[in-house]
C-alpha cells in the first residue's frame, strides 16, 4: 500500500476509532455455556453424502460467506481401476449447486468428500500468526479475531487443507468458525442442520454421552493428512485412500 502523508493523516481518526472498538469490553456471553465443558469435533460419514450442496449453501447463508469463497465445500472423487493414485476431483462452485449427473455406464467409483476447517488441536495456522489474531479456543475451535487480523495471509498459506481465504472486502483472514455463534447457544452448525442424510454430525468429545465415542470405536475413521500431526478433529468415516 502506497501512503503519502496527506492520506496517512486523513486515515488517523478512522484508525483511532477502529482501535477503540478493539479495546472495547466483552459483549454478553452465552449464559450456561462453559468453554471448559466442551471439545468440539465433526464427523463426516462419506457413504451418506449425496453431494446435494445443502451444507455449502447453508454455510454461505449463515455466515455471509462472500461469493466464490468457501468455508465448507464438497469435492467429488472419481477413482478408476487403472489409476488409483490419481483420482479425478471436481468441485464446481464448491458443490454449491450440486454436481453434474453421471451416466450409469461410466467406469470407476465415485464418492463425495465434504471439506471444511479441521479445527486442529495443534494447528499450523494459529502457530504462524504474527499478531495473535487466530487461535484455538479452550473448547477446541479455531477462530479468527477479525478486528485484530492484519490480513498478511500467512495462515492462509500455512493451512495444509486450504480452508482459509482472505475476505475480499474486509481484507482479513476468514474461515469456518464451526458456527461458534450457534454451538455456544446449544444449536447445531448450519451445515449439520441442513444436511438431509445425516452425513455430518457435530460431536462434543468431552460429552461422555455423545454417540461419537461408540462410533469411533466401531468404524474405520480417518482424519485428513494424519502424517502432518495437526490434531485434526474432522473425522471421516470410510475415507478412501486416494483422498488428499
Amino acid at each position, binding site marked *: 500500500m502506497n501512503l503519502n502523508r496527506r492520506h496517512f493523516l486523513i486515515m488517523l481518526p478512522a484508525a483511532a476509532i477502529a482501535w477503540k472498538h*478493539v*479495546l*472495547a*469490553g*466483552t*459483549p*454478553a*456471553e*452465552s449464559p450456561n*455455556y462453559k*468453554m471448559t465443558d466442551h471439545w468440539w469435533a465433526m464427523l463426516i460419514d462419506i*457413504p*451418506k*453424502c*449425496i*453431494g*446435494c*450442496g*445443502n451444507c455449502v449453501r*447453508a454455510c454461505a*447463508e*449463515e455466515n455471509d460467506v462472500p461469493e466464490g469463497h468457501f468455508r465448507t465445500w464438497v469435492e*467429488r472423487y*472419481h477413482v478408476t481401476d487403472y489409476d488409483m493414485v490419481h483420482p479425478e476431483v471436481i468441485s464446481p462452485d464448491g458443490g454449491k449447486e*450440486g*454436481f453434474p*449427473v*453421471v*451416466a*450409469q455406464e*461410466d467406469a470407476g467409483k*465415485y*464418492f*463425495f468428500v465434504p471439506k471444511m476447517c479441521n479445527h486442529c488441536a495443534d494447528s499450523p495456522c494459529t502457530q504462524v500468526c504474527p499478531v*495473535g*489474531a*487466530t*487461535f*484455538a*479456543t*479452550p473448547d477446541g475451535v479455531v*477462530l479468527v*479475531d477479525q*478486528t*485484530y487480523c492484519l490480513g498478511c495471509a500467512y495462515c492462509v498459506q500455512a493451512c495444509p487443507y486450504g480452508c482459509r481465504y482472505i475476505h475480499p472486502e474486509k481484507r482479513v483472514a476468514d474461515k469456518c*468458525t464451526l458456527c*461458534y*455463534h*450457534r454451538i*455456544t*447457544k446449544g*444449536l*447445531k452448525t*448450519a451445515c449439520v*442442520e*441442513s*444436511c*438431509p*442424510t*445425516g452425513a455430518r454430525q457435530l460431536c462434543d468429545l468431552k460429552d461422555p454421552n455423545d454417540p461419537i465415542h461408540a462410533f469411533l470405536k466401531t468404524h474405520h475413521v480417518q482424519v485428513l493428512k494424519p502424517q502432518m500431526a495437526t490434531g485434526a478433529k474432522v473425522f471421516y468415516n470410510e475415507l478412501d485412500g486416494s483422498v488428499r
Partner: protein
Amino acid sequence: MRRFKDTGHLFRFAFLFVAAFAVFLVIRHFVVPKSFGEYGHYRGAAIAEIAAKPIHYAGHQTCETCHSDILDAKKTGKHVNVNCEACHGPLAKHADDPSITPPKLDTAVLCIRCHAASAAKPKTFPQIDAEQHAGGVSCETCHKPHNPALAAGDGK
C-alpha cells in the same frame, strides 16, 4: 583514587534506558487490549464477540415448538430425519416474528436436488430420472414432501 573516572555518562545512559522502558510500559498498557492473554496469546474478548453473532438457521427444535402437526406427519415417513430448514432454508427471522412469511418452495427444484439419478451417488439412496419417472408431472401430485411414501398422502 576513585575506581572509575567519569562515571556520569554511564548513569545518564542508564537513566535513558530506564526512562525508555517506562515509556514502553506506559504505551503497552494503553495499546494492548484488556483481555489479551486471558486464555492465551490472543484477545480473549474475541471469543464472546464471535459467539454473539446473529443466527440465520433457527434449528428444528425451534420449528417443532409451533409446527407439531408437521412433526407428526414426518414421524412415520422416510424424511423423519431431514431437518425443516434443509428444504425450507434459513428461517430464524420467521421464528422470531411469525408474521414474516417464509418464501414458497418449488418441489421441482427441491426434490431433484437430492433425488436426481446419478451414478456418483451412493447406491442405497433413492434416485429417479425425473423425465422417465414423472414425465413432467409435479412431484407433489403423488408424493407429499413431509411423508413421501405413496400411501401416506394425508395432505401434509
